[in-house]
């Protein structure tokens, strides 16, 4: 059995950073090859090189044993290489068919596009691999999982034989993940070769036969997956022993930091999103909010932080009613907020790292004088936080946030919020899309915050995360708190039942 793809000694540099440093990856025909590495290790860069989005400074790429030069994605397509990007490349207002044939439209009479012909071919493919999608719906009407299927169909329609998946499961629900892995297995049965970028170790164990690990831009090792345990893979990726279970002391809750009373909120079209939500967070404890996405978590965060102010009920911080306070007043009175969506709320992507670190404090005495920003203080703070939180950025404080990897972006937000030493830290999905090393780090920081006598409210869709670090768990279901449990007295199964709404307290 030969190799479908050989990437030999690839080096790719960006200003200030060597994203890929002499990396070699060989993909055997008809197999699934995992590419494992921390956030910012250079996995996406390597695959972008293969797909022709970047040109490597050094190195050779071979397809079916022949040396090739992939100068742009069209060449990659001709070589039958397809890629599903982390952020889908679909035209939202086009239908599924239109998206699939985009760029390779079958010509009919008078230069019209022959959609009939296309449809036949697509149906044939989708039946073969179990990729059922409604072909005449618009992309904007599809779920994320269905959109991903469209991306896969797009590759197959172009008769790709080598498929690259860039963190395909990051955006999917557990059921959708199962389906996707099944599809991937089908694809290899038909002789396709697959590279999957991921840092979810369980998935690698489940489907990949080989795994190449890269760390800080360097290829570390290619291993046979069957011979390694999840723990060994994780240690290889991070470069040291990592623990999945964060060590923590017994919580010592003291006075109430946050109290919400009877929150009720409707969305724009009048649907009730929060119903009579009341709870407390004490200093020195982490309260986890568990629930399936869309059961009121976002609304709850918005109400507490002030991003939304049309709701009934009360928000009380340290005994003071702050229900109607502005966002700035809330920030100053001691609320830290790690937002759910770091690109939408957490960062000004076009600002530099150091500017992002002063987003809420630029006007304070520490960073300004008579309306002028004290640039030296701003740089000092960013140097300090880069060091303390191990934020990796090519040009340090002057790095544009957009060019940083997701994990480092998240770390910067966390650094910013922790630096302000808030009494209450609201952490919404703090580890979404991060690798185990970064997750471990963030969990430790959250526990440190707790142990320094602050209150932490953790909102997460990852049940493991909630069970791992919170002291109490509240379960949100359809906008109501349906259960309040001590973490040590409960388990995944019990919480799962509450989350699904099949049990009520």
């Amino acid at each position, binding site marked *: 059995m030969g190799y479908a793809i050989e990437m030999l000694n690839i080096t790719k540099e960006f200003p200030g950073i060597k994203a890929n440093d002499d990396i070699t990856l060989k993909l055997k025909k008809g197999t699934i090859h995992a590419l494992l590495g921390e956030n910012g290790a250079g996995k996406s860069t390597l695959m972008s090189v293969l797909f022709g989005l970047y040109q490597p400074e050094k190195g050779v790429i071979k397809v079916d044993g022949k040396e090739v030069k992939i100068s742009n994605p069209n060449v990659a397509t001709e070589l039958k290489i397809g890629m599903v990007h982390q952020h889908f490349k679909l035209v939202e207002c086009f239908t599924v068919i239109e998206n699939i044939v985009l760029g390779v439209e079958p010509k009919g009479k008078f230069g019209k596009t022959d959609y009939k012909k296309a449809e036949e071919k697509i149906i044939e493919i989708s039946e073969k691999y179990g990729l059922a999608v409604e072909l005449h719906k618009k992309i904007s009407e599809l779920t994320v999982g269905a959109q991903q299927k469209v991306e896969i169909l797009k590759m197959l329609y172009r008769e790709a034989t080598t498929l690259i998946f860039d963190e395909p499961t990051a955006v999917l629900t557990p059921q959708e993940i199962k389906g996707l892995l099944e599809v991937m297995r089908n694809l290899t049965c038909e002789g396709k070769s697959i590279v999957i970028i991921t840092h979810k170790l369980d998935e690698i164990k489940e489907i990949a036969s080989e795994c190449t690990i890269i760390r800080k831009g360097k290829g570390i090792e290619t291993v046979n997956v069957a011979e390694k345990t999840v723990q060994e893979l994780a240690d290889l990726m991070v470069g040291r022993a990592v623990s999945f279970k964060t060590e923590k002391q017994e919580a010592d809750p003291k006075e109430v930091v946050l109290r919400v009373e009877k929150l009720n909120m409707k969305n724009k079209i009048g649907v009730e999103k929060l119903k009579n939500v009341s709870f407390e967070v004490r200093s020195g404890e982490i309260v986890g909010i568990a629930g399936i996405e869309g059961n009121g978590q976002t609304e709850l965060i918005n109400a507490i*932080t002030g991003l939304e102010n049309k709701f009934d009920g009360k928000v009380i911080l340290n005994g003071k009613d702050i229900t109607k306070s*502005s*966002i700035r007043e809330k920030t100053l009175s001691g609320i830290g*907020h790690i937002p759910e969506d770091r690109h*939408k709320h957490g960062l*000004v*992507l076009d*600002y530099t790292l150091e500017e992002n670190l002063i987003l809420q404090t*630029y006007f304070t005495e520490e960073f300004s004088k008579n309306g*002028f920003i004290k640039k030296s203080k701003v740089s000092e703070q960013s140097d300090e936080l880069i060091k303390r939180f191990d934020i990796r950025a090519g040009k340090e404080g002057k790095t544009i946030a957009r060019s940083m990897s997701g994990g480092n972006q998240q770390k910067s937000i966390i650094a910013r919020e922790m630096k302000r030493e808030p009494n209450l830290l609201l952490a919404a999905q703090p580890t979404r899309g991060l690798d185990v090393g970064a997750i471990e780090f963030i969990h430790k920081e959250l526990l440190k915050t707790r142990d320094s006598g602050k209150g932490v409210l953790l909102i997460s869709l990852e049940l493991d995360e909630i069970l791992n670090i919170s002291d109490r768990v509240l379960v949100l279901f359809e906008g109501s708190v349906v259960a309040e449990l001590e973490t040590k007295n409960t388990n995944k199964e019990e919480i799962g039942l509450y989350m699904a709404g099949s049990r009520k307290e």
Partner: protein
Amino acid sequence: MSEDSIKRISPLISIILGLLLGYLLLLLVGYDGNSGFKYLFQGGIKGITEGKYRRIGDTLAQMTPLMLTGASVAFAFRTGLFNIGASGQMLFGGFVAVLVGITVDLPPVILPLVATLLAGVAGGLYGFLPGYLKAKYNIHEVVIGIMMNYVSVYLVQYLVKILIPGKYVIESAHIPKEASLKMSFISNIFRGSPLNAGFFVGVIALIVIYVILEKTTFGFELKAVGFNKDAAKYSGMKVNKNIIYSMMISGCLAGLAGATFYIGYTNHIKLGTVPTLGFDGIAVSLLGKNSPIGIFFSSFLFGYLKNGGSFMASSTDIPRELVDIVIAIIIYFSAISFVIEKFLNKLLVKMKKEGK
């Protein structure tokens, strides 16, 4: 050569390419490219070495309002807005300057200064409405801006007719000499060129917006709102207020441009047309990469070419229209300097590869 230096030299290279193409065009149509370009280059600065500053004065005079409309558009761009209404704001500001110049009695020097400041205020107020509608109802500022340009033309026409009618129906009354931004000490140096104190207004305005955008907390907020409204809101900034401020400051700069033009470059308002200088400001801003220093140079280039173009048209038999085309080509090329930048970057990568 590094990527940074490519960024710096690519505008220069693109201007040179534009010049070459313009030259070729002249040859192709059958005119004497050499003499044409000689006059084009000389027109903007001729005599500067012999102490005759008339022509450079003309160039700077042409440059003055462009500096300000360029600054106006750039300030809006930098804060996430597209001020296509600079023309209307400029006209309205200019009207207020002319009105003050004619009707208010103040000592010389003070009078034009007051008129200029009030023109800025008027432009700022004129920018309020698009800003407010954008902030409050998310109506796109381009739509409102275009409409407001028309409103400005007819509003000014109406106000001129009832307040300061001129000798002819198509123009306003002329301002008295004391109200003009043309100062005798400047005119003496530049031998009667229309260069006026508005030039300094422009330079000061560029410095001020540089300071606001790069150094102050106010600019930090304005830019943050422009880049990402959601993150600005999350950070506790007042998003709507900042949008309105941005548009008003942008309008204020355009209003100042109106003053430098209507009580500086000329001394009255021509009715019925919207000044194209506001639209030229878009090109000036883009060519200057929306930075105050860049705008200084790009507005100079515009002024220099405008002035040189007139000289070329009057000194050779090359028709005015062809001159305009040549200038347009040069500007066009300079505006797409990012294409050149991309090309040079590719070349750089290639060279590096082969070098190693």
